């Protein structure tokens, strides 16, 4: 079990993306120029100094802020980011369960979702502003983590039932989904699933999801490099 605790950390080696390095360089250079203008405000009496102040106190900070915001939004999609909160640790472990009936584990281990954005891929609505609503929910999670009552991992529930839309975003039209016999037990099964009237997960079909309360007895898969 202790081995499983570190599975996620071992398998994900974090490399700082090139864009983050560029953003750090831009912000650093801007800070140096803004500092120069701050400590030598008399420079702005000359035309060159006015141009420097405009660049250092308006153009570059705006650019650095926009780029930083974009980078932060991108980082917040990462699996590592979601696993930062202790209460999410078991959910991270559930991605490594060696049992294909665990839907998230099967998706994660077989690269059906990008491993670096595993949580975000399934838990963001595939709708207009889906990413934004996910971020707003994330702010609520941060509030609960630091200022609210943190629930036990097994007590964490989705705000609303998981919508089939999130599954069908990838599976709709796929041969394995369209032709498998279990999806044709009734003639209207695919239609009902498409309309979200028959849940993929809570209709006793794919109902083993994270199931963190069962992890104590689970076997775990270790990624071979």
């Amino acid at each position, binding site marked *: 079990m202790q081995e499983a605790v570190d599975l996620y950390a071992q398998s994900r080696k974090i490399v700082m993306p090139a864009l983050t390095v560029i953003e750090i360089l831009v912000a650093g250079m801007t800070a140096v120029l803004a*500092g120069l*203008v*701050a400590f030598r*405000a*008399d420079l702005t009496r000359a035309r060159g100094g006015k141009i420097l102040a405009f660049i250092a106190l308006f153009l570059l*900070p705006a650019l650095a802020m926009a780029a930083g915001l974009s980078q932060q939004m991108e*980082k*917040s999609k*990462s699996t590592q980011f979601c696993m*930062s909160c202790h209460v999410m640790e078991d959910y991270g472990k559930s991605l490594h369960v060696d049992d294909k009936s665990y839907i998230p584990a099967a998706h994660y281990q077989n690269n059906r979702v990008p491993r670096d954005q595993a949580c975000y891929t399934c838990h963001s609505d595939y709708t207009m502003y889906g990413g934004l609503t996910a971020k707003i929910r994330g702010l609520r999670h941060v509030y609960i983590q630091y200022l609210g009552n943190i629930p036990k991992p097994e007590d964490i529930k989705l705000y609303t039932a998981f919508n089939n839309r999130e599954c069908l975003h990838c599976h709709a039209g796929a041969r394995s989904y369209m032709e498998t016999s279990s999806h044709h037990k009734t003639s209207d099964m695919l239609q009902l699933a498409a309309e979200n009237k028959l849940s993929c997960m809570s209709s006793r079909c794919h109902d083993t999801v994270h199931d963190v309360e069962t992890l104590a007895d689970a076997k775990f898969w270790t990624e071979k490099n």
Partner: protein
Amino acid sequence: MAISSIEQRIRWAGLLVVAGLLVQLLTMTWSHPLAFMAFLTIGCPLTLAGVLLYLFSLATRE
């Protein structure tokens, strides 16, 4: 050398921008919800305040 009120505002604007950018730089090296929150609630407002103070200093007279 005497500093005019516009230059004083520009000085404060510069300091605010530097403070905001330093917070942003710190948060960029850390992938954590607290870093995200610090970026949003400290870094961005400080930088924005500096930029707005600079624009205000351009729009006002001595």
